[in-house]
């Protein structure tokens, strides 16, 4: 039986990992845009405003349309019912401003 050095095996494993990661890079580079394009088309045609991520409640389903006090709709100090509250930051009020009136 041919003698295999343990360093060969170790380097082999690391190289295997490197190849896997290189493969992910390749796949990412070759990935088609088709799905994104079809979604974009649908958004345009139906005039949609949000991703359908959180369908639990009204104000989680359309976060961009929710008014500023929707989070307090049930009670001013009510905690988030839904996990979506912790996954989505409230809008940054500093940048919500439109052009100043006048």
């Amino acid at each position, binding site marked *: 039986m041919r003698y295999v*050095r*343990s*360093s060969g*095996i*170790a380097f082999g*494993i*690391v190289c295997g*990992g*490197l190849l*896997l*990661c290189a493969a*992910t*890079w390749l*796949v*990412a580079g070759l*990935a*088609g*845009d*088709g*799905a*994104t394009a*079809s*979604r*974009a088309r*649908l*958004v345009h*045609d*139906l*005039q*949609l*405003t*949000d*991703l*359908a*991520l*959180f*369908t*639990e409640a*009204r104000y989680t*389903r359309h*976060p*961009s*349309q929710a*008014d500023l006090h929707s989070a307090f709709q049930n009670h001013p100090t009510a905690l988030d*019912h*839904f*996990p979506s*509250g*912790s*996954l*989505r*930051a409230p*809008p*940054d009020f500093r*940048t*919500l401003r*439109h*052009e*100043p*009136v006048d």
Partner: protein
Amino acid sequence: MNRWIERQRCLVDFTVSSLLRRRGKNLGLILVYTAIVFVLASVMLFGQALRREAAAVLSHAPEIVVQRMVAGRHDTIPTAYLDSIRAIRGVVQAEARLWGYYFDPGLSANYTLMVPTDRVVEPGTATIGHAIARLRDARAGTPLFLLSERGKMHKFTVAATLEPDSELVAADLMLVAERDFRSMFAIPADAVTDITVSVRNPREVGTIATKISRALPDVRVITRGDILRTYEAAFNWREGMVLVLMVGAVLAFLILAWDKASGLSAEERREIGILKAVGWETSDVIRQKLWEGALISLTAFLFGYALAYLHVFGFDAALFEPALKGWAVLYPRFGLRPSVDAFQVGTLMVLTVLPYILATVVPVWRAATIDPDMAMR
């Protein structure tokens, strides 16, 4: 050069033998380390892909959306407002939108009912989103029964299903005819849910938004920029659940590294003494430790990252589903496009690989410089 390579190979031979001594412990170490990288990389890849998708897809959202507020709540908007908006200079088009939520008590699911402006839906039929089709096992011809607020039962026959790819934006959509919508929700003919506006010059959006809110004092104006900003911060690592996950992973990692960094045992010191006594230089000892740290951390990082990639893009981030789904019944298939941000990968690598290597090498530094004659004693 060859000598140098052979020398490193010999050091790695010894490193592997050394690690194999505590086979179970070191295997467990690599597994835990890989798991930590897996979690961190999954969150990073998922969040980044989702944000990218949102930016790409929602850049086709309406330029301006006009909502009416009554007592701080979103209420229907009179169709008469359309004329006021169309009168503003710079406005190319103002369209009414009819949409609303329907709660299906049988399945505890929320649907978004909508009247499309780009296609004709026959009254009594509906085009449903793919997730609804999955949930109710519905296809063309299946009847769906919805109960209106007035207590009247409406029957919709499924005309078509939206493509599976569209789930991320249209999972819970139900496209119905205007007549059916108004009947379901008792909305009179002169009111609509909101109004979308397109402008001639994109740079004028802000100005026109201001004009609209001035012309119609009881409305709230949302621009496309606002919509995009909402999703820019989604799954931000600084927030809520993601932050907890990251902190947990970082802590686990620190505990891992602490075990290494907290100094050498007497046995380890003795071994360094022996190695030096038989002819290893200080630099050889340190280099060997470097290889040990590098082998473990690189293996864990590479495999953890590759697994995370597979998890997020191959399995649709299935492990996150329980957390993301929450109380929802309808949950979209993301189908995110694989993307890799070199900067983020690099940051993750520096944050996980480097500290571990340092934690392995630094304690050895002092011990490696002791005089080898200690081995004689």
